[in-house]
């Protein structure tokens, strides 16, 4: 970790001990962003090393992953559009058609969920806590860049330990609309357009052909909705409803939730 030797500090211990208690300090030493290491800041929990053999009862548990998904977000003149599907699959079994894949971190920041559902929601809730502490300490909202950096730094400490998370942090701060892609490999990329999941290629196709900087809010919403719909049409692991959010200078607004089958009828009747 950068500056670790200079800070001579509270770094994560990466030894391969089985079930080592992990003092996850959400405060200064790790992120270096805040200076107060109050006792309440730390979050401790055990981490089981995934590289060592199964469980106590010898059964290998399969974790339900949301790689089967389509989530997208793009920036345009009036903010950021975030559109996601709502299907969760375990193998070829559809576990749920009504999953909420957009996590409301705070009234002006959104995070999307792809990969492990538990990983995404846990870490993004932790991020929400950290963002709120930042706001109270510094008397101003956290920037999207800083929020995504905090998340990326948090999960980077667990790199190689089996976390699965591909998320987009979307918001509006003093620099305007912000969109970052963060994943459990440690990537953190700023960009204007991202699609994540098994249906992402289909979504990219639709978005790339329709995206312009001067779209109106309605046109942009329709573009995001159509892109997710087309992805659910072809990708077996995406489906359910299309949840659409718009992030603007006043925060985020939930635009719509539409069932993919209704959209199918609508587009068929339009054509």
């Amino acid at each position, binding site marked *: 970790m950068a500056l670790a030797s200079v*800070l001579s500090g509270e770094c994560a211990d990466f030894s391969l001990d089985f079930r080592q208690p992990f003092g996850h300090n959400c405060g200064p030493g790790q992120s*270096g962003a805040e*200076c107060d290491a109050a006792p309440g800041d730390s979050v401790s929990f055990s981490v089981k090393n995934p590289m060592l053999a199964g469980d106590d009862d010898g059964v290998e548990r399969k974790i339900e992953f949301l790689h089967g998904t389509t989530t997208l977000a793009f920036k345009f003149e009036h903010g950021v559009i975030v559109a996601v599907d709502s299907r969760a699959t375990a193998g070829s079994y559809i576990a749920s058609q009504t999953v909420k894949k957009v996590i409301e971190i705070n009234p002006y920041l959104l995070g999307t969920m792809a990969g492990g559902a538990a990983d995404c929601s846990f870490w993004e809730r932790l991020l929400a806590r950290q963002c709120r502490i930042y706001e109270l300490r510094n008397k101003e909202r956290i920037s999207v860049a800083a929020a995504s950096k905090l998340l990326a730094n948090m999960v980077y400490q667990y790199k190689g330990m089996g976390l699965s998370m591909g998320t987009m942090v979307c918001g509006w701060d003093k620099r305007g609309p912000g969109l970052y892609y963060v994943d459990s490999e440690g990537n953190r990329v700023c960009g204007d357009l991202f699609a994540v999941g098994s249906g992402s290629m289909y979504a990219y196709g639709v978005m790339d052909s329709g995206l312009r900087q001067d779209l109106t809010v309605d046109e942009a919403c329709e573009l995001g909705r159509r892109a997710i719909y087309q992805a659910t049409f072809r990708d077996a692991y995406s489906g359910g409803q299309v949840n659409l959010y718009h992030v603007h200078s006043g925060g985020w607004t939930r635009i719509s939730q539409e069932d993919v089958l209704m959209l199918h009828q609508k587009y068929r009747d339009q054509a």
Partner: protein
Amino acid sequence: SNMCCFSDVGIRGKDIVVLGVEKKSVAKLQDERTVRKICALDEHVCMAFAGLTADARIVINRARVECQSHRLTVEDPVTVEYITRYIATLKQRYTQSNGRRPFGISALIVGFDYDGTPRLYQTDPSGTYHAWKANAIGRSAKTVREFLEKNYTDEAIAGDNEAIKLAIKALLEVVQSGGKNIELAVIRRNQPLKSKEIETLVAEIEKEKEEEAEKKKQKKST
């Protein structure tokens, strides 16, 4: 000795922040350039201290690392308030720790936030910090502060040069051998810390004083 309790003054102008320090006279064989009481913490923030020089070195080092650490994680330069809060928290930790003594320094921290607002903060060994328009620390701080309270007006800090002159005048109240023992540094908006040559300004101030004295004499005689 390494005691440096001499006076420092800080002034917050409109587009400039000024730090003036009283230098102790250097011994003949000492290299003057190594005695520096005004230090840059980052491009847009600097601080002057009064107290134990050795303690100050530690605090300044930690503050410099924190400025860069903040740039790394938050992708923004520190605000003056943030770094002041960090230094103050650091000092407070040492007032409540086993086997440690507090840092023996007071600090004046000046700079510009990224939205362009000039700031001046003062911290002391207890770990408290406050924002000021103008302040002094060190020996004779009270005298200097009284001078500032009388003379800090909107006209007095209307321009950059006026603010600088006010700082020099304030220090001249308490400094023994005049301009030779004063060191001055300024930060202007979006510009890094600059040392100021003060001989010409001190000469100007002396001239102004003489002119004031002349005017008063003439009034009396007529």
